[in-house]
């Protein structure tokens, strides 16, 4: 397969059900259906954004792909290799190919390690080079993410939020991975800093040919960085398409309502308002049939009993809805 079309990440029917333990004997009283059958794939050098409300399972998808939590069912392929059932030792070499950038630039850096130690740790763990070579490599990464090399000995608390996020990005880059999962990497930052970090993330993508799974609840951010977008609702993907189509011609009623909620800076523009009624149902007891039918303005009888499959409604646009 040509390099540009190579699939870096393939996820098939991924499920993650967290057991709810109750009582003294820790019996399993039920499950949180955090991720309930998610399939997605990302080609080399592309960014797939995973969007949805908080609690829809998007972060769990990211963590499960990295095997930071064990999948309940499904299949995860990194660069063609199935890593779903690898044990820790077998998984280690694949960890070099996939890394994560965290949301919170404060709690994601060990306060007792210097910035240089934090960025150099992945290299040390994987036995890359000797101490001097690693130091040189860390200084090099520092420059690439816009930090000054002389700050390697400073501690995280001596940096600002934006700089700390750069350290987190530098750590993720250290092992030269193909795939980087960004778990809301800018949502804890000030808006002015967000733009800088997003531009950095995109520059690095061009420079290193990185592939991103970008998890976010902010559609404006997603519009800036992504090539494709998958919309999640209650553990399932409801719509998947390229960025332009999603913003101009969304098909799923949930996507429509999300887009209607994006604030527009121009007050003369009038848009169709779709305000969803009620709350997101609990992932412990997801509604039968289509998960969205309880809040969907177009729901009809079939939606309450039959779970709609994700199917290609228009070329390149996949939607899980009976009325489309």
């Amino acid at each position: 397969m040509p390099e540009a079309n190579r699939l870096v990440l393939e996820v098939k029917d991924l499920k993650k059900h967290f057991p709810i333990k109750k009582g003294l004997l820790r019996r399993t009283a039920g499950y949180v259906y955090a991720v309930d059958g998610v399939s997605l794939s990302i080609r080399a050098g592309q960014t797939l954004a995973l969007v949805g409300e908080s609690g829809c399972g998007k972060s769990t998808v990211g963590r499960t792909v990295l095997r930071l939590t064990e999948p309940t069912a499904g299949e995860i392929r990194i660069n063609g290799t199935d890593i779903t059932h690898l044990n820790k030792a077998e998984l280690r070499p694949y960890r070099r190919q996939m890394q994560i950038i965290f949301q919170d630039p404060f709690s994601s850096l060990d306060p007792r390690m210097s910035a240089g130690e934090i960025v150099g740790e992945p290299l040390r763990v994987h036995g890359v080079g000797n101490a001097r070579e690693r130091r040189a490599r860390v200084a090099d990464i520092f420059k690439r993410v816009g930090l000054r090399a002389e700050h390697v000995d400073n501690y995280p608390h001596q940096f600002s939020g934006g700089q700390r996020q750069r350290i987190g990005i530098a750590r993720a880059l250290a092992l030269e991975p193909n795939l980087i999962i960004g778990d809301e990497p800018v949502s804890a930052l000030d808006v002015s800093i967000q733009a800088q970090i997003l531009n950095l993330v995109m520059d690095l993508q061009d420079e290193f040919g990185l592939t991103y799974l970008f998890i976010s609840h902010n559609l404006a951010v997603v519009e800036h960085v992504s090539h494709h977008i998958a919309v999640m609702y209650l553990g399932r993907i409801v719509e998947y398409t390229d960025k332009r189509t999603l913003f101009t011609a969304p098909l799923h009623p949930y996507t429509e309502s999300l887009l209607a909620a994006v604030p527009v800076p121009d007050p003369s523009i009038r848009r169709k308002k779709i305000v969803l009624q009620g709350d997101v149902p609990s992932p412990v007891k997801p509604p039968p049939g289509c998960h969205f039918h309880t809040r969907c303005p177009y729901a009809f009888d079939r939606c309450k009993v039959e779970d709609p499959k994700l199917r290609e409604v228009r070329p390149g646009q996949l939607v899980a809805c009976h009325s489309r």
Partner: protein
Amino acid sequence: MAAIETIEAGPRRESRLATFRFYARRYPLGAAGAAIAAIFVLMAIFAPWITQVDPTATNPRISLAFPSSEHPLGADFLGRDMWSRIVYGARISLAVGLGSTGLGALFGVTIGLTSGYFGGWYDLIVQRVMDMMQSLPLLVMALVMTAALGPSLENTIIAISIPLIPTVARVIRSNTLMLREMPFIEAARAVGMNELSIALRHVLPNTLAPLIVLATAQLGSTILVEAALSFLGLGVPEPHPSWGRMLSESAAEYVRVAPWLVIFPGAAISLAVFGTNLLGDALRDILDPRQRD
């Protein structure tokens, strides 16, 4: 680039002396504590050079002697030189304090870290054992231990260290429980670090600050427990000069006729406890990088 701000440099690593001076100026009380502790340590190490008088030699002619140029702190009932006994007593107190705190911290940290980090049934069982150990007060527990092991310096150290284990284990465990959910632990996992390295490199150093405070506070109380045990005849046996026994023996009988026999060992104990507490407070601040700028 605009994104780069200048960062105030912390203390530079020019020399150890300069670093020490930097901290001494910032934490004058800590420096005082360090000075007190250093005096006692030096006293313990150089005891034979500081005083030529044998601390165990008796002399009936100077029984209960008032402080004089020959015997600067007076002499006890058996005519043993008090100055010499206090100087040599620093060895006992230091051995008991450091030995039992170190031993207690070693086991406490190991138990607390493993139990907090790995959790599950192991944690449940270990914590119930710790509950049982903690249901007895430090002194009572130490009493039972020395009574069982018999009086000697080593046994005193062991006896005092055992009740410290659950205290340390609890503090470390509760810290570990909080730390293991932190994203930087997840980052280490994403890199492929094994669990033991994560526990040692990321969790343990972050529990250091409360451990140091706890250990220095306990250092003082171990000296007090040793004194109490010696008072009850179960601590460090005669003829070793123990501050605690010196204080308790004299307090019972000679406080009216020879108050210096009570004042000097009492002052030594108080000063040692006070000094280690001051030092511990400063160390906690210094060892936490967040406090450094």
